[in-house]
C-alpha cells in the first residue's frame, strides 16, 4: 500500500514539473505587462520601468524561471505583485473555502447520483431509466450561472429560506481560524449559531456546483451497474439466495463504482477550477475569484501558483482515486 502510494507520488512529480514549465511559458507569452498593471492607473512610464527592473521582469525568461523554481522548491510561491501578500498565504486562506464548497457539492452529487445511477441501471431501458437519464443530463446541460440565479430568486428572494451570498452573515463573528474550513472552525469553537449560519450559506452554491457532477455520476454508475449485472456472479449470488437489497447495494454496487470513482477524481479537479462562476455569483471567498482576478490583472505569481495548486490537487486526488480503487478491488493493488 505504502509502496503503491509512493510510486504514484513519484510518478506525479515529473508531471507537475512539466505542468510548471508549460504554464510558465504560457503565462509569460501573454502580452500583458505586469509592471504596467502593477504601477496603477496614474503611473508614468518611468515608474513602470522602475518596477520592471525591481521585479526582474527585464531579465531573460529562463533566468526568471530558474529563480522561480528555486523558490517553489522551498514552498515559497512568491509574492503577489498586486496584493503584496505572499501567494502561499493567500491560497492557504482561500483554498479551504473552495475545498469546503467542492466537497459538499461532490458529496451531494455522490449521495444523490449513485442511488439514481443504480436505479437507472436496474431499470435499464424502461421509463424510469429514461427519465433518470434525461434529468441527469439536464443537470449537465443547464448553465450553472442561470441555474444559480434562479435558485437565488426562489430560495433567497421569494421564500427567504436561504441567504443570497457569502459564507457567513455580517452580524455573526467569525470563529477563530484553526483549520480554515469554516464549518469545522465553527464546531471547534463550539459556535453552533455560526455553524448553522455557515451551513445555510453553503446550500445554494453547493447545490449549483453539484449539478454537473450529478449527471456524470449517474451516467457512470448506471453503466457500471449494467456492466456488473452482466457478470456471472450476480446470477450465482441470486441463485444462492442473497437478499435482493444487499445484493444490489453491497455486492453489485462495489463492483460497479470503479469508473464512478475515477470520474469523481476527474470532477474534483474540474470543480475546483470550474467553481469560478459559482464563486462569483455567490460571492464565495474561494480560490476561483482569486484566479480570475489574477488573470485579469496579469498577476503571474498567482497564476503560476494556482495552476501548480490545481495540478497538485488534481494529482493528489487521482492518487486517492487509485487508493480507493485498490480498496474497492483488491486485485488492483496486487498488480503494482
Amino acid at each position, binding site marked *: 500500500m505504502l509502496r503503491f502510494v509512493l510510486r504514484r507520488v513519484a510518478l506525479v512529480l515529473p508531471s507537475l514539473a512539466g505542468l510548471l514549465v508549460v504554464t510558465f511559458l504560457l503565462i509569460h507569452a501573454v*502580452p500583458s505587462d505586469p509592471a504596467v498593471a502593477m*504601477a496603477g*492607473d496614474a503611473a508614468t512610464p518611468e515608474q513602470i520601468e522602475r518596477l520592471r527592473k525591481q521585479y526582474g521582469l527585464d531579465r531573460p525568461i529562463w533566468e526568471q524561471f530558474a529563480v522561480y523554481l528555486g523558490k517553489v522548491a522551498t514552498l515559497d510561491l512568491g509574492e503577489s505583485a498586486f496584493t503584496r*501578500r505572499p501567494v502561499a498565504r493567500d491560497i492557504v486562506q482561500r483554498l479551504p473555502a473552495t475545498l469546503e464548497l467542492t466537497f459538499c457539492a461532490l458529496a451531494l452529487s455522490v449521495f444523490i447520483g449513485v442511488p439514481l445511477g443504480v436505479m437507472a441501471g436496474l431499470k435499464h431501458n424502461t421509463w424510469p431509466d429514461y427519465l433518470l437519464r434525461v434529468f441527469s443530463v439536464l443537470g449537465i446541460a443547464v448553465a450553472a450561472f442561470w441555474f444559480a440565479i434562479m435558485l437565488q430568486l426562489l430560495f*433567497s428572494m*421569494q421564500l*427567504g429560506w436561504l441567504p443570497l451570498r457569502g459564507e457567513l452573515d455580517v452580524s455573526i463573528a467569525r470563529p477563530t481560524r484553526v483549520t480554515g474550513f469554516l464549518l469545522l472552525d465553527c464546531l471547534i469553537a463550539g459556535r453552533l449559531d455560526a455553524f448553522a449560519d455557515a451551513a445555510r450559506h453553503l446550500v445554494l452554491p453547493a447545490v449549483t456546483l453539484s449539478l454537473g457532477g450529478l449527471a456524470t455520476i449517474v451516467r457512470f454508475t448506471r453503466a457500471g451497474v449494467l456492466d456488473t449485472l452482466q457478470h456471472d456472479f450476480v446470477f450465482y449470488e441470486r441463485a444462492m439466495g442473497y437478499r435482493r437489497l444487499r445484493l444490489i447495494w453491497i455486492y453489485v454496487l462495489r463492483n460497479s463504482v470503479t469508473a464512478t470513482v475515477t470520474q469523481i477524481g476527474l470532477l474534483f479537479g474540474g470543480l475546483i477550477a470550474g467553481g469560478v462562476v459559482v464563486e462569483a455569483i455567490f*460571492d464565495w471567498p474561494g480560490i476561483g475569484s482569486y484566479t480570475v482576478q489574477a488573470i*485579469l*490583472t496579469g498577476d503571474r505569481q498567482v497564476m503560476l501558483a494556482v495552476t501548480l495548486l490545481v495540478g497538485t490537487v488534481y494529482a493528489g486526488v487521482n492518487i486517492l482515486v487509485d487508493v480507493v480503487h485498490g480498496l474497492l478491488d483488491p486485485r488492483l493493488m496486487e498488480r503494482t
Partner: protein
Amino acid sequence: MSRHGRLGRRELGGLAIGAFAAGALRSAQAADATTFVSGFGLPINLDPHQIFDVPMQAVMLNAYDNLYRYQGDPPKIVPWLAESHTVSADGLTWEFKLRSGVKFHDGSPLTADDVVYSFRRMLALALAPAGAFLKILKPEGVTAPEPLVVRFKLETSYAPFFAAIPSISIVNPRQIKANEKDGDWAKSWLASNGAGSGSYRIVPAGYRPLEYLDMEIFDGHFLGWSDNPKPVRKIACRPTKESSTRLLALLDGSLDCTDTNLPADQVAQINASKIAYVQKDVVMRTFIIRMNNTKPPFDNLNARRCFAHAFNYMGFITDILGGYATRDPYPMPDTLWGIPKDAKGYDYDLAKAKEYMAKAVAEGAPMKRPFELHVQSENEQSVQGAQLFQSDLAQIGINLKVVGNIWSNLTTAAAKPETTPDMWVHWVSTYFVDPENWVGQMYDSQFHGTWKASAYYKNPEVDALLRKARALTKQEERAPLYEEAIRKIMADSPDIWIYNSMQLQGLNKRIKGRRFCTVGQGAEMRWVTLAS
C-alpha cells in the same frame, strides 16, 4: 420569478406554508442599525501609497486622513489635517500648518514629521499615487521646520500640486517601522493592515483581499463625532462580483449600498422596491472612444471627423443609459473650469459622416479597411456603446469589429503607438480635480506612452499651451490657456468624447446623512446614519 421586476415577497404571502417556513428559517437578516454593509469594490490591497484608484478611495477616505480633502458637490478642496497653507510667489514653496491634537489609531499624536514620513514613503515606493509628484518633488524637498508645519520645496512650478495633495494619505510611521522588512517601507504589511488616523480603523482579522473588509469606528478621530450622534459603528465591505447578485442583495436588504457602476437598466427595478432607491450624482468621469492618430486613416482629420459624426450620442445616452449621463462634447468634464463653452462639439449626423468619409477617401485615407474597436469585455456599457457604433458605421459602409479585451492588456498595448488598437473605449475618472487630469495628461505629447495619452495626438501649439498652464498657479490665468487648447484639440477631433457620467448607486433607504463628492464617489461614511 416575478415578471414585473418587483420581488414582493407579499405576492407569495398567501402561501401559508411558505410564510411559515420563511419565518422559521429566515435568519437575523434584519440589518443591525450600526453595521453598514458596503458594496463598494475593494482595492487590490489596502496600502494607500501603493494603490490609487476608485475602490481605494473608499478605504482611504474612511481609514486615513489627508492634509486637504475634497468635499461637496461640486468638489471643493477644504482643510483637513492642515488648518491652512501658504504658497510662495514663484509657486515652488508650499507650507501647510497642521491641526494640533490629532491622534493616530494607536493613540500616538500626528505631527509634521509623520506627514513628512508619509510623503517620503509615497515617493520612495513611486507607485500610482506618486504619479503627480515624482517629477516635481524630491524626498528631501519635504521637511518639517516646526512640529506642526510641513514645507514642500518643488523642483518646478506645478499648478496641479495642490489639487493632488488630497490623494496622499498620512500614515503612522511608528506602526510602519515596526513592521518593516529589508527596507520595504512595510509595504507587505500595510497591504493588509491599516496605520492611519481616519474615522474608521481597519480590522486586520476582518480582511481577505478582494473578498471582504471590516472597519470599525475610531472614537478618537480628530473631528470628533459630535456632528453625527448616531454613526455607523462597523463598515462591513462585502463587494459583489455579479451584477445580478448585487441587485438581489440590495433588494434583499443584505447590502446597504452598491458600487457606483449600476447599469441604467436596473434603476427602475430598484426604485420600484420598498427597501432601496437609486441615487444619481453627477461626477467627473468622461467616457471616450480613443482613436490611434498614428494609424491610417486616423492620421487624416476628415476620417476622424467622419467617425466623430457617426456615433449616436443621444441615442446611447437616452436609450441605453436611460438618460443617466450628460452629453459632454469636450475632452473633459463640462462641469470643470477651463471649458470653452462656445466651442461646438460633434453631433450624430450620418450624412456629415459620409461627406467626411468621401473627403478622406479622396485624400487617400484607407476607409474601407476593417477597423478594430477594443472594449473591456467585462464592462457591459462599453460593449453596448461599441455595438451601437458598429451598427451605425455599418450603415455608411464602414466595417468595425468589436474586440473584447481586458484592462491590463489594453494599457500594455497603449504604451506604444504600433500596438495601440485603432480605437478603444475607456473612462477618465477624477484622480484630482484639475484640467491636468484630463486634457493636460491626454493631449500633451510628453505623455505619449501612457494610456491616458493613447490617441498619440501631437500638436505643438497645444503642447505649448498645456505646458504653460501647468506651470502657473492661478486658476484665472490658467483657464484661458486651457480653453484655447481645448478649442484647438476639438478642431482636430483626435478622439470621440461622448459623455460625462452620472453616477448611479443603489442605496438602502435607511441610509441618512450621506455626503457626496465626486472624489470618492460618496464612499466617505463618517456622516452616515442608519435609520431603524
